[in-house]
């Protein structure tokens, strides 16, 4: 009973993440990869992403503090960040990455700094939401639908 409710709640949260543009289709791909062998696959991936990208964030911050800005380096870092983010389906974060890269190419330091702030905001917001989501998912128990026929 409670589980059913939890599951419903979970489904709603999940749907809203998509609806609000936080996640995209790639996230669904990840969910489809989850199976008996890796029942917490999505969570693991997301955890890995946040762990790895936090390092990237630090590097980007450092790069942004340099003067003059090394746009190439910044672009390379952003490329990496974008790749990572897109692989988990972090839609908004990815969009910010793209934007930042544009500013890099344009050589606009101001634009880069501004966009980066925005990026961090999205990044953190998503993280919180996903943490809550996974926590709920654990409470709700394994969902059969997670095991899709392969």
């Amino acid at each position, binding site marked *: 009973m409670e589980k059913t409710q939890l599951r419903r709640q979970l489904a709603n949260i999940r749907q809203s993440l998509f609806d609000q543009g936080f996640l995209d289709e790639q996230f669904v791909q990840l969910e489809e990869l989850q199976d008996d062998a890796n029942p917490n696959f999505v969570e693991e991936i997301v955890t890995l992403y946040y762990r790895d990208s936090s390092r990237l964030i630090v590097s980007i911050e450092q790069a942004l503090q340099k003067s003059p800005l090394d746009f190439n380096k910044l672009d390379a870092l952003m490329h*990496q960040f974008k790749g990572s983010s897109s692989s988990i389906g972090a839609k908004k974060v990815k969009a910010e990455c793209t934007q930042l890269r544009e500013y890099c190419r344009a050589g606009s330091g101001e634009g880069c700094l501004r966009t980066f702030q925005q990026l961090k905001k999205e990044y953190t917001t998503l993280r919180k939401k996903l943490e809550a989501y996974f926590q709920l998912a654990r409470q709700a128990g394994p969902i059969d639908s997670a095991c899709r026929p392969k």
Partner: protein
Amino acid sequence: MSTASSSSVRKPSESVPLQFPAGLRVLVVDDDPTCLMILEKMLRICRYEVTKCSRAEDALSVLRRYKNGFDIVLSDVHMPDMDGFKLLECIGLEMDLPVIMMSVDDGKNVVMKGVTHGACDYLIKPVRIEALKNIWQHVVRKRKNEWKDLEQSGVEDVDRQQKANEEADYSSSANEGSWRNSKRRKEDIDDAEERDDSSTLKKPRVVWSVELHQQFVGAVNQLGIEKAVPKKILELMNVPGLTRENVASHLQKYRLYLRRVSGMTLQQSNLNNTFMSAQEAFGSTLNGLDLQTLAAAGQLQPQSLATLQAAGFGRSTAKSGMPMPLVDQRNHFFSFENPKLRFSDGQQPHLNGSKPMNLLHGIPTTMEPKQLANLQQHSAQSHGNMTMQASAQGGQTSSQLMQTPQPQARSQILNECTATSVTRLPPTIQQSILPNGTAGSVLARNEFTTNSRGGGYNLISPASTMSNFPMNQTAELPGNSFPLQSTPGVSSIVPKGRFPDEVNSISDIKGSEGFVPSYDMFRDLHPQKPDWDLQHVGVTFDASQGSLDIPTAAFGHQGYASSQQNGHNRHTSTVGKAMFLLEEGSDNGNAQSMGQQLNPLFDDGSVRVKMERASETSSQTDLFSEHFGQEEDLMSALLKQQQGSIATAESELEWFHHNTPV
């Protein structure tokens, strides 16, 4: 959503191959751990055997270490330690595996770069599993092309394998015909290594490290290229665990290489000088062919021809057994260029499958035979051989020849490369330029050292005639290389110190011809350690061979088999071979323990093969034991180096030659 709709569980005892493309051995390289993990999972779901690397260097080590251990490579474009395109080239050069690039970048320029560097596909990140489901097609396609080349060149092995294949009960859903043959061939090669060898045991692949090759060369020189027979060479070398067959095949290749080398300098018409002494081993047929063609082409002086023939016939060592049929095919091949094959008959026994020699079309690639021989020795070599030969023959793929796994001394390699590439040249050319092992060849050898990066990279342009080739090669070779040297029919091509030029030129040519970019890589790679060079000759070859072995050949990937055994879907990420290899030290019997979880994940800085043996190991053990039983002596020697550490690179690579059933 696995690609294999029905997975046929294969027990080690049976030889029913896995339903292709399940079991495809994929190496994925990406510095982003998130992407890497996702890709790995996706690939596993596709029922592939996955190995992941987070660094390009690690990937190269793994590829070199486990020659023929992989069928395809997926690599990210932007990586911190090495540019993805550079890795792409390296792999193409050394191992000739299909490589798929991936990136979040979808700009036209980047994608174009992938094309020009030889990637067989380019995926935009985030990669979807659907895209991965079809990557096997690149493996098949490549094999098919190689097969075709081989067939054209009349490679014996191919022929032989083909027959074997036909008999095999393969249920691949992929292209039947050549793919099936290739694949089968690969399986058969793995399974039936013995066929190539006289023994019925699978022989471990010998890695011709720089040192080993130098020892070999020393022995050959001591005996005199004319008189250098595998048995004596083996005695002189006095390397434990090395078999006569190993030496024989290596000798073949070496001869081809020499031939090619001398041929290289010879721009088209001068080719007639070198005769493939190597041919002897290979069967004069080839030589004969070459000679014939050359003669026909008016390039071969009558007496040269005679000498060549004489030289060719001189050798009677039967090297690793190239199946005779190959010779026939080759004749066939030659015939259309020059219908006069004749020698073959006499020499066929000698051929060990050294068809390559002829293949090289007048390129005196002593290496070729050797390579071929080695190839043959090795399991699944045949495939490689074929390619080698094919390329030698002037088939298109020079790259295949390149594959010859002779990790000979650089020079050798280079020679080989040239040789192979030379093969592509029309038969009329140089075919018979085979530098005999006379002094010239010695020289050549020395000179060549460096260039042979890839050993035998194949000819660059199939279409190009010798002239092409010589261009690159810079006819540095002293004029004498062409003409027969004092020894009958043996002309050693000695591109004195020119190799580097040659190499470059070759690469250039390659470029111009639209050749495999990898060749250029070769150049870059050149400065790398010798081990690498050596290996990569072998590696390439093996790789190509290995790749065929997708459906686990009887003993196929160990991991694979075991997984099958369990009926477990191939989740095992074992690089079958790798797994086995890792455990080598423990002896086959330990397969089980080995199998167990070697799961070291790839981390930065260390190459670890992530292997999951989901399946039981017992079957594996059996599997392993069967295969490896024989190799113990050699293996133990080798294993010492490898014991436990996959990560060690150089030394292990050098010698490790595990003939893993791949």
